[in-house]
């Protein structure tokens, strides 16, 4: 109970932000919170936010772990395009659904392993290592789709985009499931702590016996896997693989979601739940702007403003200013990191 409370307190800023954004939209559009139950599933703007935010939420899960190691994965958008193309081309060449999904995930995993190998074994900076796949990835995706938008009609694959389980859209179920799974995996074991250790000081954690290379490889592989799921969802959603536009600039949204979620870009501190809430904040803002009739172009400026605010709050310079302004809290602040439960 106390763990849950502590978790809630840590996520308070994100939850408050999400609540404020939703309240603002709800205030302007009273019908926003209306939920209907039709044909065995939920409908409504809120469900729509959860559903539309699925790709970013999925990407944010992997991105959180990557950023926690002080890395970054720029290639996730391109990996989405590749895996979407793989899924579409396999299913249109009459492969069984299970084989298609398995191969798609495998391709995503391979992309992640490639990034991870560059970072872990060649010691290349993450930005640049993942830039290679970001640049080349869309070309590869085009190669797979042979330059056209591959459309498909397989009901099984489409289910991942527009189907529903227990009344919730399938993409929502997927990101919730993935989020819980990964969060439990890293927080109920020592993995999360070790990942944070790499983020704080890779060299020191290696010297103290952490298998940094293996962990980095795993972390980037997870990110690739998440991108593969996101790519499948995005392709299933439009019933086709668009190598040019699938996941375009979503890596930036995913990074923004992670930063919004309170994960430090300087590594060493992460929260998967925070990132997921961050993804929902972004989607809520997108939906709100669309609803309010403002041109969607304002999205970008609002996102820029959000980043700047977070930067100011997160920056070491202003943190030291906070400490200076409130000296009485100095001894209460140091222990904020969650410890894995024994």
């Amino acid at each position, binding site marked *: 109970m106390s763990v849950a409370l502590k978790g809630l307190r840590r996520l308070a800023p994100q939850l408050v932000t999400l609540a404020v954004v939703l309240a603002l939209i709800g205030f302007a559009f009273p019908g926003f919170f209306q939920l209907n139950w039709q044909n065995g599933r939920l409908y409504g703007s809120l469900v729509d936010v959860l559903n539309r935010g699925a790709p970013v939420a999925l990407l944010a899960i992997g991105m959180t772990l990557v950023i926690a190691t002080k890395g970054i994965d720029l290639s996730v958008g391109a990996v989405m395009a590749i895996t979407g193309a793989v899924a579409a081309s396999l299913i249109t060449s009459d492969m069984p659904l299970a084989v298609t999904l398995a191969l798609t995930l495998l391709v995503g995993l391979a992309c992640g392993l490639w990034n991870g190998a560059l970072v872990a074994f060649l010691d290349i900076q993450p930005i640049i290592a993942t830039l290679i796949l970001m640049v080349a990835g869309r070309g590869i995706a085009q190669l797979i789709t042979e330059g056209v938008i591959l459309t498909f009609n397989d009901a099984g694959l489409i289910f991942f985009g527009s189907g529903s389980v227990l009344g919730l859209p399938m993409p929502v179920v997927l990101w919730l499931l993935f989020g819980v799974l990964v969060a439990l995996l890293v927080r109920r074991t020592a993995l999360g702590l070790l990942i944070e250790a790499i983020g704080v000081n890779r060299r020191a954690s*290696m010297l103290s016996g952490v298998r940094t290379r293996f962990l980095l490889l795993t972390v980037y592989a997870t990110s690739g896997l998440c991108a593969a799921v996101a790519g499948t969802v995005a392709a299933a959603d439009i019933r086709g693989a668009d190598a040019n536009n699938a996941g375009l600039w979503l890596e930036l949204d995913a990074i923004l979601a992670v930063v919004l979620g309170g994960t430090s870009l300087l590594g060493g501190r992460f929260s998967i739940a925070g990132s997921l809430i961050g993804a929902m904040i972004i989607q809520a803002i997108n939906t709100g702007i669309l609803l309010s009739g403002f041109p969607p172009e*304002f999205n970008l400026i609002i996102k820029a403003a959000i980043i700047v605010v977070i930067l100011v709050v997160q*920056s070491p310079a202003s943190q030291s200013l906070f400490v200076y302004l409130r000296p009485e809290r100095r001894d209460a602040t140091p222990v904020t990191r969650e410890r894995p439960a024994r």
Partner: protein
Amino acid sequence: MIRAKYLPLMTTLVVFVLAYAICIAQFPAMWSTRVVANLLTDNAFLGIAAVGMTFVILSGGIDLSIGSVIGFTGVFLAVVIERAGIHPAVAFVLALVIATGFGGVMGAIIHYLKMPAFIVTLAGMFFARGMAFVLSTDSVPISHPFYGELQSLYFKLPGGGRLRLIGLVMLLVVLIGTIVAQRTRFGTNVYALGGNLQSAELMGVPVARTTIGIYALSGFLAGLAGIVFSLYTSAGYSLAAVGVELDAIAAVVIGGTLLTGGAGFVAGTLIGVLIQGLIQTYIVFDGSLSSWWTKIVIGLLLFAFIALQRAILWLSEHRAGALRTRPA
């Protein structure tokens, strides 16, 4: 050590010459000053922006905003010239001032808030693109006679090639960039920052001024690239030049600049840009290849050059015997 310093640049040069030789072997028509002149003209905006990126990367930073700044400048020029009726020359100055100030502010945020350049310039990228959208979401054509005059200026090369004004501007920027990097105090400071920020600070390099200067320079050159791009297309479109920052980073890396900062040459960047242009020209000449091969080949080249950099670094460490202190 001196040879290791020039090795990436030399490799880039050899790759370019070899690639060009292969192109000519296959399409003899590519051995023409027309092709060379077009190579320079078509990639002028990328070259100019990439020079700014070279300085940023030399200092150990990154600037993701340049594509958006190019797009913004184009739209700004179109709107100011066509809708507000301001003379293009005045509009150019205004655009450059805005772009430079924008870069300077990002530099100040990076320095004073001590945040990663990556995320600050990401915000800048969103902001500039958003402002471009706010100004106009349509493609605005520019039909001012001054544009026609500037576009008709060219320098005739032997063999019928026409080196247009914008190609010349790029060559000039590369030349000045080289001089600034190699022969001025600012340039030395940039290298010092990239080599080791802490040491540079302790040695008395004005870190704040240099950091702000670097990003302001990158902003200025992105603005100039925007002007060139607007002259090239005679229009301003808010979705123009999306992803140019990636091409510019690729050009800088392929040009042999060390990604961790501190080593590299502006001239290498020019060759990096030309290699990218050459791939595109080859695809045009071939006719059957799709343009997405450009991206794949550039990705491969990026990987090859990064691997080469690691190898050089590893070798020089090995030679210095520093490997003992650094677990492999």
